[in-house]
């Protein structure tokens, strides 16, 4: 664990202690479950976003991709498709959309932030057209039951998220894919010159991020049994904030799995804790933004301070 990860962990623990003192209902298993349940989607989408950022990419359309995948899952569920197959519809739809996004961004050589902004609009219209004003409401409970079961005492969601993070960790640390991805993040030009299959790796990353977003959609539908047209509307910015908070640089070449988990958890712990201690929910975005600026600003200042101390010492 590096400095940022330690400070996030300490921040999480401090927040938990403060909130436990402030509210008698904070440190309960029920509340811990609430916080973790509310983190599921952001943990999965954040993982994909982390890979994209590490590659020097970004995707501001993940929220609507989750919406589209949720429609796919919801339709399949409503049509009475077997829950196991239904669960796969999410990642599959997400991967397909990731492929489409990659085609525009990678083949079209369009800057990712602008290209995905355009696709955001296109996908959003697709959601409206597909739903046509009728939400998918009161969906059957098949998927909820399937994903609500526990294996060795842990809910399926926990296993899936752990597996996803483990798989990404292996891919990053033990396969050439990880090396290539980070190399592209450091410098796409140099990566190309050194013979890395840049196009392939970038395609793969967008597809993986799409699949993870689609997986989040599966959990969303299982959780809410409802698909409305606003699914995921604030997700992209939340995910970017959480991942950057976790120490991944948007310049690419650097990422942190532990940091991403801690970033997501810290956001959710604060949101939950503030509400429990009586701060109105309207203040939550202020806290998110303040945290982002505070953490990054603090790091810069403390680095500068230690550097200047070093400079002073060497004199």
């Amino acid at each position, binding site marked *: 664990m590096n400095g940022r990860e330690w400070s996030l962990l300490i921040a999480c623990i401090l927040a938990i202690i403060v909130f436990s003192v402030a509210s008698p209902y904070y440190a309960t298993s029920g509340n811990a479950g609430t916080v973790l349940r509310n983190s599921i989607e952001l943990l999965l989408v954040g993982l994909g976003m982390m890979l994209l950022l590490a590659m020097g990419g970004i995707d501001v359309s993940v929220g609507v991709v989750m919406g589209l995948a949720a429609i796919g899952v919801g339709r399949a569920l409503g049509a009475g498709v077997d829950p196991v197959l239904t669960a796969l519809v999410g990642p599959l739809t997400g991967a397909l959309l990731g492929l489409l996004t990659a085609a525009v961004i990678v083949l079209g050589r369009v800057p990712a932030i602008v290209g995905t902004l*355009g*696709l955001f609009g296109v*996908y959003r*219209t697709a959601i409206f057209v597909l739903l046509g004003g009728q939400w998918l409401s009161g969906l059957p409970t098949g998927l909820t039951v399937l994903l609500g079961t526990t294996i060795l005492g842990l809910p399926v969601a926990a296993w899936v998220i752990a597996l996803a993070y483990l798989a990404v960790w292996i891919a990053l640390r033990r396969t050439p894919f990880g090396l290539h991805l980070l190399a592209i993040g450091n410098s796409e030009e140099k990566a190309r010159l050194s013979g890395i299959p840049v196009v392939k790796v970038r395609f793969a990353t967008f597809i993986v991020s799409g699949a993870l977003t689609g997986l989040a959609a599966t959990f969303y539908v299982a959780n809410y049994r409802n698909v409305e047209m606003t699914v995921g509307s604030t997700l992209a910015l939340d995910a970017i904030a959480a991942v950057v908070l976790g120490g991944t640089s948007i310049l690419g070449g650097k990422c942190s799995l532990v940091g991403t988990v801690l970033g997501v958890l810290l956001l959710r712990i604060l949101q939950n804790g503030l509400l429990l201690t009586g701060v109105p929910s309207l203040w939550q975005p202020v806290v998110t933004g303040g945290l982002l600026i505070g953490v990054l600003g603090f790091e810069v200042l403390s680095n500068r301070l230690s550097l200047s101390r070093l400079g002073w010492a060497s004199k």
Partner: protein
Amino acid sequence: MNRIRNLQGPALILALLALLWIIVILVLLVLKPSVFSLATVTTILQFSTILALVSLGQAVVILAGGAGIDLSVGGIVSLSAIASMLALKLGLPSFLLPPACILAGAALGAFNGVLVTKLSILPLIATLGTFFVYSGLALALTGGAAQSGVPSWLLIWGRGVFSGIPVPFLTIAIPFFAIAGIVLMWTAWGRWIYAMGFNERSARLVGIPVDRARLILYGLSGVLSGAAALVSLAWLGSGRPNIGQNLELESLTAAMLGGIAILGGRGGVGGVFAAVMLLVTLKTGLLQLNVNTVWQVGIVGALLVFVLLADRLSQYWR
């Protein structure tokens, strides 16, 4: 044909936008000739004013490079409208409302500039943070309630129309664009901004005060957002905490569509102006034809992708 092939960069974008604009107008002309009334022109300009001001700020910030971007513009618009109205309630003399609103915008923009230049936080992240803070504060401070009590003399300016052109457009948007265009094209300042965006290292080497310039540009983006907030106050007659909603995405779309390169150093304010006009005309046209509004976001998104691809393809042709 050759001349078209030789078009590139900003010129190509401008030509493309003009062409698209003419197509939109022609389609409308065929489908619904009644659209072409003075009232429609007034409407288009009225709804362009805020977007035009904010997009101009967005454009200069991106133009100056250093991965410049301002995601907080919508938040600045909301918060400066709210802050100045709250100040009015706390006893600020009403004639000071306009400067207070613009000043609030300037301060919020300058804060972005400090984060970016002094703390070296990447602009995307710094302004993402302030986007949450500013737009959140505007809602949290008011509990979502609109703040009424804009002095009536301000409404006369905000709702006035002079020979078909809304007065705020005439007195704020046009001057700002004219000044920005002149500064960018004909002054040393303008050349500095392009140089910073084109190659920051050499800009520093030749002695351009990059950090100070960038700080000022973020402040300027704040001033423009503050001006947009003032227009909204004078037009709607009240300060609304979510008035800037979606402006970050819309202004970014307008700037990109207008041919500002996301990496900076390329593009001009003429393109941004044309893009704003195209966007609002397109929206108006679709509304006049009673096309379901769900298609608006998709068409604008597709247009953005299309223009980006066209720009890219034009480099292959050569």
